[in-house]
């Protein structure tokens, strides 16, 4: 009652195009789950509006076109996978004859086909896969996946990534909320970074991971002659073993360096532009740095 009022989200404005995978990133408490809950009609915003598939988030008919995997899903102990899936399907008004066909298919798809034990005996990863299966039960146009790879081993994570890619190819729109930056980088078409309830950055992963302007030039042998030759062009270059880290003014300077090195002579093994990783970019954004 006497606590400080902190808005979970402040002026967040997003537009997600159909048929894309949209990644939502942010540190803990950034407002990612709150945003998802508002979009799903589970929480009410104090102000502002959200439209989902041209409808209000609270509209039950619209929600039948949506799949949702919550972050901390809890399935009652007494349920078995089939019964759980049946109940979730019926809540979405999926016809019984469709469920009879889809449930075994989906359980097979998430590698839970032959599992007979009750859900309480499932590992975290198995529960997560079951959650994914229920989210796809109504053949949704839009999928909200809140930390879908939480608790999964590397093989399971790869399976989820493949599943997301497959769903995208089917024309589904996917809203992915994840801490796993590498996954977001691999599967998302657009990424938004939320920080303290605000949209800190919004772009494609390629834009986030664009080149830094620096190159790594790797040579067969970094002898004194090679280093001396390089120093005439790359005055600010930094040698690490046989690799020269160098930020040229322009392409001509880079070519001049390569010509100089070849004239020593030395064999050039590789030239790679240095890119930001999404993680580096993310850390920069959330710590208030400039991109």
């Amino acid at each position, binding site marked *: 009652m006497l606590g400080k009022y902190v808005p979970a989200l402040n002026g967040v404005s997003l537009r997600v195009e159909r048929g894309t995978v949209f990644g939502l990133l942010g540190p803990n408490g950034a407002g990612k789950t709150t945003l998802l*809950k508002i979009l*799903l*009609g*589970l*929480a*009410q915003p104090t102000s502002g509006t959200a439209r989902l598939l041209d409808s209000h988030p609270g509209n*039950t*008919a*619209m*929600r*039948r076109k*949506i799949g*949702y995997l*919550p972050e*901390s*899903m*809890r*399935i*009652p102990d*007494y349920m078995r996978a089939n*019964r759980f899936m049946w*109940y*979730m399907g*019926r*809540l*979405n*008004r999926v016809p019984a004859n469709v469920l009879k066909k889809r449930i075994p298919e989906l359980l097979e798809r998430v590698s839970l086909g032959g599992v007979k034990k009750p859900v309480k005996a499932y590992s975290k990863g198995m529960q997560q896969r079951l*959650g994914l299966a*229920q989210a796809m039960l*109504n053949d949704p146009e839009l999928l909200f996946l809140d930390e879908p790879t939480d608790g999964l081993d590397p093989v399971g994570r790869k399976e989820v990534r493949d599943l997301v890619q497959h769903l995208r190819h089917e024309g589904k729109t996917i809203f992915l909320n994840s801490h796993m930056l590498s996954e977001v980088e691999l599967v998302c078409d657009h990424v938004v970074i939320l920080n303290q309830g605000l949209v800190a950055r919004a772009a494609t992963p390629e834009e986030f991971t664009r080149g830094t302007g620096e190159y790594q030039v790797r040579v067969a042998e970094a002898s004194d002659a090679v280093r001396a030759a390089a120093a005439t062009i790359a005055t600010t270059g930094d040698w690490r073993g046989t690799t020269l880290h160098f930020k040229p003014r322009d392409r001509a300077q880079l070519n001049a360096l390569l010509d100089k090195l070849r004239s020593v002579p030395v064999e050039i093994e590789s030239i790679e532009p240095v890119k930001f990783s999404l993680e580096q970019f993310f850390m920069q954004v959330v710590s208030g740095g400039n991109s």
Partner: protein
Amino acid sequence: MYASYLNSLMEAFSRRMGLVLVGFAVTWAVVFNWLVHFIPLNDGSTMVYLGKRMMGPGSLAQPALLGIGAEITGGLFWMLLSILAAAPLLSTTLDRGWLELTLSKGTARWRVFLGRYLGGCTLYLASVVIACTPLEVRFWWNTGIGPWPLLVAMLIQTFIFASLLSLAALAALPQMGPAPPILLSLMVAILAPVLAARKIGLYQILTSNWSRGLIDWMYRILPKTHELQGASTIFIRDRVIESWFPFWSTGIFMAVMIALALWLLHRKSL
């Protein structure tokens, strides 16, 4: 709502307390039926015995014996067992992690919750049917006396239970587990007979006008489970409803509790 209703029944019969309630109902039915005998007489009539005790012809024995059954199934112990079995159906609906999953689906919140509530009421009705119907069927078979007074009595008792469960539904909303709904509805079940007999009980202790007024208002507002229980046994015996006041006043209480619970759930921000 039907999906939620069916799921709640499935959950009820998967829970230990649900099985205890059904087990208790089956045991009661077996024991009661084992004790009651029908002896056909030479004049074509049938004499009914409870153990070795003669209860008289069917027309006299039926109200007496089914009245005993109704007093047991509408009694505090049976209500206690039923609340312990049914109230968690409402509180588990609101478990975090499960609530987000169910309420994000294409079914309105009130339908999900009302389905669970009706499932709880059905659990109680099922236990009463299991406990009382076999003996009634035997009466019907042996004496030709129809079952409708018992059916009405069972519905009255389910109405009592539904009123207590409506309070449990409201108490479940703060998401503090099954304890508050169970305790609150049990408290009302215990308090109802005390309030019904307030003029010969509480009035002796509370002598001031304001305290008596307060007690009177509590009586008017809370469900009249004691009077309704009496009405169910009287109906089996005399086939009449003496007063409709307990019915409509309890009905209003129940409707308000359910409407309030559904409205609060509708507005709840998860």
